[in-house]
C-alpha cells in the first residue's frame, strides 16, 4: 500500500476496487448469460443449416437484437472494465444500457459464430448511427476525444450489416453517412499528432468499396440511389494516382459519369497524376499532367463541394512535393533572384508563408 497518498484518496481507491472486484451481482448475471448462450447455440445448431457444406444451402443469419449493444457484450465489458466514457452513467463507471454501443470484433478462425441475439436489426443499426452522430459527435464536434470511439462503433455497424448480408437501401444510407464521417474526420483532425489518418483513409476506402458494390446491385435491380454520383466522386478522389479509379469511372452509366461532381473528381484525379510520384509500375506516368497550381485552384473552385475538397486535402503534401520537384527542374538557381516564397505559397495554396 502506498502510504504517501492522503487518506481520502486511499478510501476512494478502495471503494473503486470494491466496486470492481466485488461485483458479485454482475458476475452472476454474466455467468448466467454465458450458460444461456451455450444452450442457445446448441439449440440453433440442431435446428438450422448453419454448418451445411454448400453456400446455397446455408441459412442466412438474421439479427434480433434491438439494443445498441447486446446484453451479453455489455455485461462482459462491464465485468472487464471495458466501458468507454461516452457509454457510462455520468460520474460513474457503470454502463448505461441506453448509451452502450457494440464494439467491432475482429474476425478470427477460432471465434464462434455470432448468435442472432448478438446481431442488431437494420432499424437498430440506423438508430445506433443516429445516436453516434446526434449525441456523441454533437457533444464533441472537434472529434478530439470521440473520434476513435465513433470510428470503432461505425465499423461495428458495417460489420453487422455484412454478417447478415443486408444489402438494401438502409445499408446504403448508413454507409453513406459513415463515409461522410470519415471524410470530415480527415479534414478536422488533419495535422493532429494523435490522429492516424491512413487508418481513417483505409476505413473510408472500405466503406466506399462496399457502397460501390451496393450501387451496382441496386442498379441491376433498377433501383435509383440518389447519392450515387456523390460517392463515386469520393471514390475517385480517395484513389488519386490510382489508374483503376479511372477504369471504374469509365464504365459508369452515362448519367453518373457526366454528373458535375464526378467530372470535378475526375479533373482532380487527372491534375494530380505525376510522372515523379513513386509508383509500382514504371512507365505509367508518361505525359502525366502534374499540374499542382491548377489542382489547388480546382479544389478551391465553387464547383468543388466541401467534402470533396476535404478528401482532396489528404493528398496535399504529395501534390506539393511533386510540384516542388518539377519546379526544381525548371527553375535554375540564381543568387539574389530566388523564387519569391510568397508567390510559391500562393501557387501551392499554403495558408501562410510560415506553413
Amino acid at each position, binding site marked *: 500500500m502506498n502510504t504517501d497518498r492522503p487518506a481520502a484518496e486511499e478510501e476512494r481507491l478502495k471503494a473503486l476496487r470494491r466496486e470492481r472486484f466485488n461485483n458479485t451481482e454482475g458476475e452472476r448475471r454474466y455467468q448466467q448469460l454465458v450458460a444461456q448462450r451455450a444452450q442457445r447455440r446448441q439449440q440453433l445448431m440442431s435446428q438450422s443449416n448453419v454448418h451445411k457444406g454448400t453456400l446455397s444451402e446455408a441459412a442466412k443469419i438474421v439479427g434480433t437484437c434491438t439494443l445498441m449493444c447486446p446484453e451479453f457484450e455489455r455485461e462482459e465489458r462491464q465485468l472487464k472494465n471495458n466501458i468507454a466514457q461516452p457509454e457510462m452513467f455520468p460520474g460513474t463507471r457503470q454502463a448505461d444500457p441506453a448509451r452502450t454501443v457494440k464494439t467491432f470484433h475482429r474476425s478470427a478462425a477460432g471465434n464462434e459464430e455470432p448468435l442472432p441475439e448478438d446481431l442488431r436489426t437494420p432499424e437498430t443499426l440506423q438508430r445506433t448511427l443516429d445516436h453516434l452522430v446526434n449525441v456523441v459527435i454533437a457533444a464533441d464536434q472537434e472529434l478530439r476525444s470521440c473520434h476513435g470511439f465513433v470510428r470503432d462503433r461505425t465499423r461495428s455497424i458495417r460489420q453487422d450489416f455484412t454478417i447478415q448480408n443486408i444489402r438494401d437501401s438502409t445499408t446504403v444510407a448508413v454507409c453513406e453517412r459513415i463515409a461522410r464521417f470519415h471524410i470530415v474526420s480527415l479534414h478536422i483532425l488533419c495535422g493532429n499528432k494523435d490522429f492516424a489518418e491512413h487508418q481513417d483513409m483505409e476505413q473510408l476506402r472500405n466503406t466506399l468499396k462496399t457502397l460501390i458494390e451496393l450501387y*451496382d446491385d441496386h442498379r*441491376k435491380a433498377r433501383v435509383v440511389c440518389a447519392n450515387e454520383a456523390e460517392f463515386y466522386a469520393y471514390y475517385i478522389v480517395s484513389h488519386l494516382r490510382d*489508374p*483503376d479509379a*479511372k*477504369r471504374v*469511372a*469509365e*464504365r459508369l452509366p*452515362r448519367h453518373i*459519369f*457526366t454528373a458535375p461532381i464526378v467530372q470535378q473528381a*475526375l479533373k482532380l484525379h*487527372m491534375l494530380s*497524376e505525376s*510522372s*515523379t*510520384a*513513386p*509508383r509500382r*509500375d*514504371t*512507365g*505509367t*506516368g*508518361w*505525359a*502525366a*499532367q*502534374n*499540374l*499542382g*497550381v*491548377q489542382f489547388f*485552384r480546382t479544389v478551391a473552385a465553387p464547383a468543388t463541394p466541401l467534402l470533396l475538397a476535404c478528401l482532396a486535402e489528404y493528398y496535399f503534401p504529395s501534390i506539393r512535393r511533386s*510540384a516542388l*520537384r*518539377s*519546379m526544381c*527542374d*525548371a*527553375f*535554375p538557381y*540564381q543568387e539574389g*533572384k530566388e*523564387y*519569391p516564397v510568397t*508567390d510559391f505559397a*500562393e*501557387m501551392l495554396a499554403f495558408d501562410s508563408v510560415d506553413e
Partner: protein
Amino acid sequence: MNPVLQAFVTSANHAFTHEDGATLGKLFVFTPSTVSELSRRISASDDFDQYTSYITDPVHAQTTHVYLTYVRDSQFVSAETGHGQLCRLAELLTVALTAANNGWLVQVVRAVALALCVQAQWAFASTGDAAVYTQTATRLLQLLIVALGDTGPEHASKKRVAVAVAGLLLRVSLRTSAAPGAYAGKALEARSLLDSSSVARRDKVSFMYWLGRYYLVCYNIDAARIQLDRAFSMCPAWHYHNKRIILRYLFVANMICGRLPSHELLEKYDMEGVYYQLVACFRAGDLAGFQNVLVDHMDMFRKQGNFLVLLERTKMLIYRTALRRISLVDRGEERANVVQYRDVLTAFRVSAQNPDMDVFEMEGILASLISQKLVLAFLFHHQKLVNLSRKTPFPVISQIGKVKPR
C-alpha cells in the same frame, strides 16, 4: 437411334478413343451454322445420353455429354444457362487436360474457351450481371495454369493453346469488376511463347491486341503501343476489319507517344471523321478544340475505354505543341531561343480558351513539361522569360526515355 446422331457418336467415340485431335477439332467447331444444324437434328432424338456408355473414360464421357447437351439445347435455353453449361464444360476440360497424354485436346480447349467468352457476352447482355465475366475468367485461368504447366515436347505440348487462352483471359478481365491485374498476372506469362513456331499466328495477334489493351487500361502507354503495333503489323492485310479495330487503340497509344497517323492511313482504313479532327487539333496545339471533339464523341470513346486516357494524357503534349509554335514565331531582334512569358501565356490562353489563366498556372504547365523532358528549357521568374535549349528544345517525343522515378 437417329442416323445423324449415330454417325456423330461414332465419330466422336473414335476420335476420343484414338486421340484424333483433328477430328475432334471439326466435331467441336462452334460455328453457328454447325451448331444449329446439329441441334436441329439431335433434338429429334432422346437417346443420345446413352452415348456416354461408349466412352470408357468418365471425364471424357462427362465432357462429351455436357457438350452434346449444350449443342442440343443451345437454341432452347437462356444465354445464362448456356453460359453455365460452357463453364461446366471448361471445368471438365481442365481436368481432362491435366492427364499426361492429352495434348491433342488443345483444339477442343481453344474452341470451348472462345465459345465461353462469346457466351459470357450474350449472358451479360441478357442479365446485366458482370459476375458471368468473373466466372468465365476463373475457368480460363484454370485452363491457362494447366496449359502453361506442361513440360512436354513443343509439337505436342499443351502450351500451344496457352497464348489463345491467355488472350481470351485478358479480354474477359477487362470486363470484370475486379482490377484487370487480378487475372492478367498469369496471362502475362504467355508472352514467352510469342516467338514459338508452334503457336498459331491468329492466336499471337489476338494475344498482342488484348495485351496492348490491358496495358492501355493500366496507363502503361509505351508498352501498349509496342504490343498494338506488333499486332497491327502481324495481322494479315486481308483481315481489314481486325486491322481497323487494332488501329483504333493503336491511334490512342501512338498519339500519347507523340506519333500521329497520316491522312492516308486513316483513309485506308476508313476511320471515322473524329480521328481526323483530333489529329488536326493536336497538330495545331488547340487544346480546347481537341477536348471539345473528344467530349462530342464521348460515348464512342467511352465504349472503347479510351476517353479518359485521351483526355488526360494529351493535354501536356498539346501545350507543348502550342509552346513550340509560339517559339517559331519571328519576334524581331530577340534571341531565337528566348520566349517571353507574355507570349507563352497568350499562346496557352488561346490554346485552352481560358482567358483567366495567370502566370502561376503557366509556370506550373511549363515546369511540368520541363521536368518530363518534353521541353528542354529553363524558366526565369524574375526576368519573365523561357530560355529554350539552343540545340533541340523540343526533342522527338518517341525518343524521350521514361522519366526515372525519384
